[in-house]
């Protein structure tokens, strides 16, 4: 009995190690659950809507969650000051913010991803961004959206459900206008 116990423990430990390795390998790569739900015609709830993130401002002592904007259309834009394509789309995103603010339908909400707060503030100043921004310091908020490359944009309706996803730079204003209108209707 005792002679079989030690090999059994060794086999169990080895099996557990292999299971952990397999789990780690299968968890690699960004999740596309939101994209698949949209493709299936559903409007999935925005992940981690309740999660408090630091507000990107000079003080940096306040926090906010997505739920603060419930009842409004939200254009959730993941960006960073080190991201060159983010600079290219910044003007389009700011134009969308001005339209949303003028109509009162909603707001752009920037999510500054794994970025220096100083660099991010400079970016906001350079591109004269007027919308609020939250900091995703460790990238775990972005991970919930399957975001591991920048920029990415999610259009949310008034119930904070995902209506459209742009994985990559937005190059035309019409994409934003179309999905903001769509989000305002749903």
């Amino acid at each position, binding site marked *: 009995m005792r002679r079989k116990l030690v090999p059994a423990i060794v086999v169990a430990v080895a099996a557990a190690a292999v299971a952990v390795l397999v789990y780690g390998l299968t968890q690699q790569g960004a999740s596309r659950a939101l994209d698949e739900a949209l493709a299936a015609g559903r409007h999935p709830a925005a992940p981690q809507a309740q999660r408090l993130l630091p507000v990107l401002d000079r003080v940096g002592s306040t926090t906010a969650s997505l739920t603060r904007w419930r009842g409004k259309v939200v254009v959730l834009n993941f960006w*960073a000051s*080190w991201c060159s394509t983010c600079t290219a789309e910044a003007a389009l995103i700011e134009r969308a913010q001005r339209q949303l603010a003028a109509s009162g339908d909603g707001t752009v909400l920037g999510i500054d991803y*794994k970025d220096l707060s100083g660099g991010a503030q400079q970016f906001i100043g350079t591109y004269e961004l007027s919308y609020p921004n939250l900091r995703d310091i460790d990238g775990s908020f972005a991970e919930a959206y399957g975001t591991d490359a920048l920029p990415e944009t999610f259009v949310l309706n008034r119930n904070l459900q995902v209506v459209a996803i742009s994985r990559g730079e937005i190059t035309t204003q019409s994409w934003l206008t179309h999905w903001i209108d769509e989000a305002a209707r749903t």
Partner: protein
Amino acid sequence: MRRAALAAVLLLSLAVAAPASAVTARTSLVAIEQQVMCVTCGIPLQEADSPAAQQEKAYIQQLIDAGDTAATIKARLVVEYGDAVLALPPDRGFNVAFYLIPIAAVLAAIGIVALLLPRWRRNRRAGAGAAGQPDALSAADNARLDADLARFEP
């Protein structure tokens, strides 16, 4: 007079020691790069060259130029990027497992060897002893062997 001389020597030694400690506390970009990660690429900063890594390096250099120590620089990097920026996670909370599991694994390995080694040695000794002794013959075989040997004797 003696007191004044002693005070002068003490002041002089303090004046010499202060800049010396300031020099030893000063760090370099290379030294910090070895201790932190590129937060977007998940590799040590010294091996990374992405735009985010370049920004991180520039920030570290800026802090070095401002005279910050290695500990202060790492603390400020944690504020900006979170604990994931450190090559070795801080020894608190769940991260303690990172330090304890290897120690536990080594202790478990030593325990298993300590448990099995006497048994292996015992088995080896028993095996060697059995190999060294001829098999005992039955009375009938002994009688037959004696008879065979007797036939060959002159």
